């Protein structure tokens, strides 16, 4: 029974992604990168080992050339994908979990709890994230754990703010009031009544937070605040800058990594905007309506509110 309902939920999501062109494109891009992250490292050599003359342009033996230390750029990009995506997705999920915990608590309990937590959220929103992250990371021993911690500290507030607002609006609905009157425990109301209404929002937030986590992680590692001995996208760019690859004309040391970062970010954003149309019926309706008008040979003008209500 339970597996059955889970299967249908999953198939609804798959179906939804397939129906939307943007979401499909995003899913394919992310799928390819996940594949590279999982099996890619088995097909390339050791990214640490110097295999040729430093700063060689792309050739048949080294498809993407070599770095300033004679390492294979392709191997570095592929191996870097694994670490960067792993940190990105983990941090993305944790950031939303922390945000959900604080945001939903604030929205659900209201009163002084809300006042205190809202203040905390707003303070963290207004303190610039990158400088704070740099200062914290500089004090702690470098490594993936520190990096993750720093990204969570500087990234949770935005999610908390959105989820708090959403909880506030769901809290006022009748079915929540009914559950409160029935005497359900707060935990049960939040987990069984409120959370399920926010599934799509939370999925969208996880995707958005992953984009943030990858970008911020690359930025911090570029500054040398990660563990520069491990191979990630950020450290690749750090070494490219450190070895003055730019001033030697060695574009191949930083262009492939940057393209990967942008493609993953773009793919995730596409996936998200696709979800948006799935979960936001208004956007979908408008598109159906415009397609209908287009089919009648009329220009698809923006629909007026009257039409939208009639729909």
């Amino acid at each position: 029974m339970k597996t059955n309902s889970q299967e249908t939920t999953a198939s609804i999501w798959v179906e939804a992604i397939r129906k939307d062109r943007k979401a499909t494109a995003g899913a394919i891009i992310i799928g390819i990168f996940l594949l590279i992250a999982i099996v890619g490292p088995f097909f390339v050599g050791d990214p640490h080992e110097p295999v040729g003359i430093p700063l060689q342009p792309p050739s048949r033996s080294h498809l993407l050339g070599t770095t300033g230390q004679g390492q294979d750029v392709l191997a570095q990009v592929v191996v870097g994908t694994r670490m960067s995506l792993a940190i990105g997705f983990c941090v993305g999920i944790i950031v939303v979990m922390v945000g959900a915990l604080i945001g939903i608590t604030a929205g659900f309990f209201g009163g002084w709890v809300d006042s205190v937590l809202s203040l905390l959220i707003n303070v963290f929103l207004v303190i610039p994230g990158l400088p704070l992250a740099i200062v914290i990371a500089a004090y702690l021993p470098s490594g993936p754990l520190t990096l993750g911690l720093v990204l969570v500290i500087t990234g949770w507030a935005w999610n908390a703010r959105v989820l708090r607002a959403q909880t506030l609006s769901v809290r006022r609905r009748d079915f929540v009031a009914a559950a409160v009157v029935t005497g359900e425990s707060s935990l049960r109301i939040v987990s069984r009544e409120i959370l399920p209404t926010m599934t799509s929002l939370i999925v969208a937030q996880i995707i958005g937070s992953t984009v943030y986590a990858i970008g911020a992680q690359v930025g911090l590692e570029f500054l040398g605040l990660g563990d520069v001995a491990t191979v990630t996208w950020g450290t690749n760019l750090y070494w490219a800058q450190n070895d003055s690859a730019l001033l030697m004309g060695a574009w191949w040391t930083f262009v492939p990594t940057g393209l990967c970062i942008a493609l993953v970010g773009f793919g995730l954003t596409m996936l998200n905007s696709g979800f948006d149309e799935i979960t936001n019926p208004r956007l979908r309706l408008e598109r159906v309506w415009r397609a209908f008008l287009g089919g009648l040979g009329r220009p698809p003008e923006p629909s007026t509110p009257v039409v939208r209500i009639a729909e």
Partner: protein
Amino acid sequence: MRYILRRLGFYLVAAWAAVTLNFFLPRLMPGDPATALFARFRGQLSPEAMEALRETFGLTEAPLVKQYLTYLGHILRGDMGISVAYFPSEVSGVIATGLLWTILIAGTAVVVSFAIGTTLGIIAASRRGGWLDNVLPSVLIFVGSFPYFWLAMVVLFIMGFTLRWFPLGHAYSDNLTPSLSLEFISSVLTHAFLPVATVVVATLGGWLLSMRNNMVSVLGSDYVNLARAKGLKPARVIMRYAARNALLPSVTGFGMALGYILGGSLLTEIVFSYPGQGYLLVQAVRNQDYPLMQGIFLMITLAVLGANLIIDVVYLWLDPRTREIGR
């Protein structure tokens, strides 16, 4: 007025939070913070000077509360200690040298990007279905997916290294001394062009998209329809009726985005070796110059808080509804 006072109160709390964070961060470090903090000073400073520095950071043997109060006192007087990397300059002095450059780069970039992006957003929304509406947002989102500093590297490589149109770094030519001469100003402008352009290109998509979406929803509202029905000129309806109101969420977003954009522009400074706060911050990190690092963090935070306060005042002026609430 009450609205402004309330916001002012919030920013004061936020500033206090940042200062307090700054106080506790060194104490997060494994081991004795004072030893690590001043390890690099050893041999450079006399024991008395060392003691004065400890005092500044409140890292004395006194109880924590007393340390904290001493520290607050020093911060209020603007005393942030002595820089290690730029010994024996004071941290506040070192920061001041970089502040102007960062404000020049980040400030210009934010304003230019907001103006162009918002204008394009208005045009895209008023001609829905045109190429500006269909193609440009996707392209700009894709460009926005690149890390700022990576875009900076590419731009520097193409325009600076290969084509040699622009200088490769720094704020002005080495052979010039700062003055109000035409030569110096033009040197500053050519050096600032690429960093500013990078940040503008990276952030344009966000402004365009948010303005376009606001415009689309405002254009569907009844009062805009009424204005159209009255037979007003389309340009007047767009600018006077729709755009004015659609601008409000973008202004709120302006304050939010400021910290984020500033972060990106700090990274951009590093690529261009531009002597602003970002460059100083990274130098401080590399040299383990903790006093300078903390000073810069505090300075940047206070600047962002100040800018947010200004935006709140502007918002009050733009949106009469907030004035009503404030009363």
